[in-house]
């Protein structure tokens, strides 16, 4: 059975009274539960369609926050001129045109793959999600929401309704995705990083590494070490910084890549950001 509610409140009610799987753009679940073409997908549960819900299909931008509704597609996000172009970089490289027309941040977050390409940015920008149920809302930091590969703290009666990204300008932003090719590729490694440098002094820095562990990796102790430093000193700190990252980066061997490659490339990208990008 499947449900196509007319409103969010109806959706939440269905969620409360039925054991259902939320279906937003469907670009993860249609692949995961695919079956012999011409037969219905083998979903493990009844399906609750939410992708059509208009009330979740808007992006609100003010001086403090960018709030993205759960059913906003990547294409809609990319077309929105109020969004800083630096934040569009990871999204531009997701899938292909067709996937960006249906795929959503909320699906990417709830799918909670360590290779999810919005996640590095959301971790680096200290994004939060809002989840709602019939009894109320919770606001949860992204790194607390995602608890492991494929798992989140979303409860069975909840729906993720919004993603909130603090609207902050940085002097430096950096993104690199190493995919298996240039489109429709799952990340082998990715790094999203931002920093604020004021008169050669680093006042803020966040580095998020994807596909290199059970979830996106951010090392607050390494970031704390850098904050306050003069950019010209970073090169002398780089060895100890990279050692800290090396300890925490725990990738795996799979059909796409190797442990060795992922670690080495992640460290290279971090080094490039810290030494080449910040040094400029």
């Amino acid at each position, binding site marked *: 059975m499947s449900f196509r509610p007319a409103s969010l409140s109806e959706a939440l009610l269905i969620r409360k009274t039925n054991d259902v799987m939320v279906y937003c753009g469907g670009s993860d679940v249609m692949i995961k539960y695919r079956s012999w073409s011409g037969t219905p997908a083998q979903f493990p549960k009844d399906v609750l369609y939410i992708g059509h819900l208009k009330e979740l299909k808007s992006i609100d931008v003010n001086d403090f926050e960018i709030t993205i509704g759960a059913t906003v597609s990547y294409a809609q996000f990319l077309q929105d001129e109020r969004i800083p172009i630096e934040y569009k970089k990871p999204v531009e490289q997701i899938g292909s045109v067709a996937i960006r027309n249906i795929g959503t941040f909320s699906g990417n977050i709830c799918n909670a793959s360590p290779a999810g390409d919005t996640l590095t940015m959301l971790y680096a920008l200290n994004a939060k999600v809002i989840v709602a149920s019939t009894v109320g809302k919770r606001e949860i930091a992204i790194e607390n929401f995602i608890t492991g590969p494929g798992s989140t703290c979303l409860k069975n009666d909840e729906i993720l309704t919004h993603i909130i990204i603090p609207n902050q300008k940085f002097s430096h932003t950096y993104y690199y995705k190493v995919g298996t*090719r240039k489109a429709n590729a799952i990340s082998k490694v990715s790094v999203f990083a931002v920093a604020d440098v004021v008169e050669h002094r680093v006042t803020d820095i966040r580095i998020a590494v994807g596909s290199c562990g059970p979830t996106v990796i951010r090392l607050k102790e390494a970031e704390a070490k850098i904050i306050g430093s003069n950019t010209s000193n970073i090169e002398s700190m780089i060895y100890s910084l990279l050692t800290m990252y090396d300890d925490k980066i725990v990738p795996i061997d799979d059909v796409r890549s190797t442990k060795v490659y992922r670690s080495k490339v992640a460290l290279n990208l971090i080094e490039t950001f810290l030494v080449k990008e910040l040094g400029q």
Partner: protein
Amino acid sequence: MNKISESIKRYDFEDKIHGKAVYTPDYHPEGMIYAKTFRSKVSRAKILSIQIPSLPADYFIVDHRDIPAKNVIPVVFDDQPVFAVNEVNYIGEPILLVAGPEKSVILEIMNKINVEYQTIQPILNIEEAESCSAPFIFKEQPHFVHYEYHKGNFEDSVKRAKRVISDEFKTGYQEQAYLETQSILATYDGDTICIQGSMQCPYYIVESLEVVLGWDRSRIRVIQMPTGGAFGGKEDFPSIPGVHAALAAIKSKRPVQLVYERQEDIQCSTKRHPSIIQIKSFLDENEEIIARDIEVKLDGGAYAGLSSVVLQRTIFSVAGCYNVENLFVRGTAYATNNVVSGAFRGFGGPQAFYAIEMHMENIAMQLRTDPIQLRRKYFVKQGDTSSTQGKFHDPIVLDLITDEVITLSDFKSKRSRFESEKLKGIGCSVFFHGCGFTGAGEAELIKPKVRLKKLKSEVEIFISNTEIGQGVLTTMRKIVSSALGIPIEHVHHNYPNSHDCPDSGPTVASRTVLIVGRLLQDCATEMKKRWNEESFEIIQNYAYPSHLSWDNQTFKGNAYPDYSWGANVVEVEINADTYEVDVKGIWAVYDIGTPIDEKIVKGQIEGGIVQGLGYATSEVLETKNGKLSQDTFTTYIIPSSLDIPPIFSKLVENPSTMGPFGARGLGEIPLVGIAPALASAVQQAIGKRITKIPITPEDILKEVQL
């Protein structure tokens, strides 16, 4: 430019662009049911028992007991069964079919089938096959075929040699990755079995049905449907789903659709042969290459299929474009418990040219000479003999081709500049592709025929060659209308139907324009002489050209009726952080004689180059305990449109004396030379030797970290 080369709108364009073309899976005749193949899950075992659940009405199991005549798919050897009986030899081997009206019910039945296996130690790669002992997969030997041939006085030259340079190269599997998976629809009217489907070679299916059913040809009809790509993957393979669907249609008396899922298709259809190639060059005191010793090993998979013919092309191509007088070449196609290897655009050529071209690079490096100069010194010329001692009768313009590609790509200055610029490299390759069937195969095995029919002012072409995206429905019309001197609108040509199209041979081996096109030209020339007759038809037979000869026992003579030639340059830059290969440009120059349609030719060139690029870089395909690890398009990485680098291609003018209007074969050659040119470029960029393809960023990291 020859008039015939001017592009026209393709005849299959409208239907395909507007989505009107009816592909096999789109076609649902009244009463049609579905079939699905139940396959082996183990790589080598005896089947002890098969338990089948009780079937609802209208559902059928089709297995070896439903075969009226022989349980054999005839290819070259008769070793492959239609359905496994007592043993299975690879993961994915068909055991039976489940057929019926509802897919979901078919899946339920499939899930309840239980096979009890007694596993046998499998043979999982070439190395294991080389040292394996009984029980063997094929007869009482570890291989399907082993061939050797000699040229000149190999033994004496080896004794004279002052220096030996030797190499070993490895190449991997490649999947054809056609857009449309294997698709067949079978209908049976109580007398005639009709197969419609996605295919390259309708008569291969006709022949398989004759053997399996034991029926007369008059009761068998095979029709090609619009086909979503093939690349060799629909040469011999569709005989299997073709025969399966036919057996199901005969048993159920209903039309049966058999369409593979992508994962199933990748797992169990034929792949490009993985290879290990060893080349030893013997040099005299003047650093002249005086002899070569070459050994080719292919992984043929579980059944012989086309491995013998692929191996022949590999060993006939592996001496490259070079005239080295003394050769000892041998090759073995091993039997393993992997998926069956088969036809793929290039057909053994890509492995051969990867090896010989990388070896030439190595020799140039060892001798500290210019790699282009070294190659030029040994280029074959008109009047020389090939590796199999066949005389090259026509002009060979390798020098011109090389000059062009060097100039276009600015190879020389880049090559020297990149010696000092880190992570940049440029590489080249020179290669050929033999057009038409090996040896005298056209005359002795295929015996192609074409038929032209005139009715008043209209002419219709009847050939068995298929439109697989390469433009046959357009190029053949151009050839016939030009030969007749009539407007092309008066020439008609449909997808082939074995009922009214004679066997003009398979659509493979870069032979369609060269061989079939020429037959049509001759046929049209005959027709023109009788143009005042209102309606008549002519059948034209192939005759083996008198200046060619071939001995299939000793492999002496003209290995192919004609050759196309080419040279590629690839420029790369390696990303210092990620070791990704950024291909800056590909330059490609070919002698394919007169192009029959410039746009179609360009399409073939660019498509072939991209497929060659995938082969050289991203298309990693490996088996683990006999199972392919990359079996979806998420994990098997073909290049996307964004991965296509700038491609600059050019043709040199050197009309063939054999093909229609001077044309030669073109379909395969663009794939053949990319891997070695790319690998040499990577070699220069990282300063380390590359001896295996595909080359991944993970491999490059390993090399630069050493």
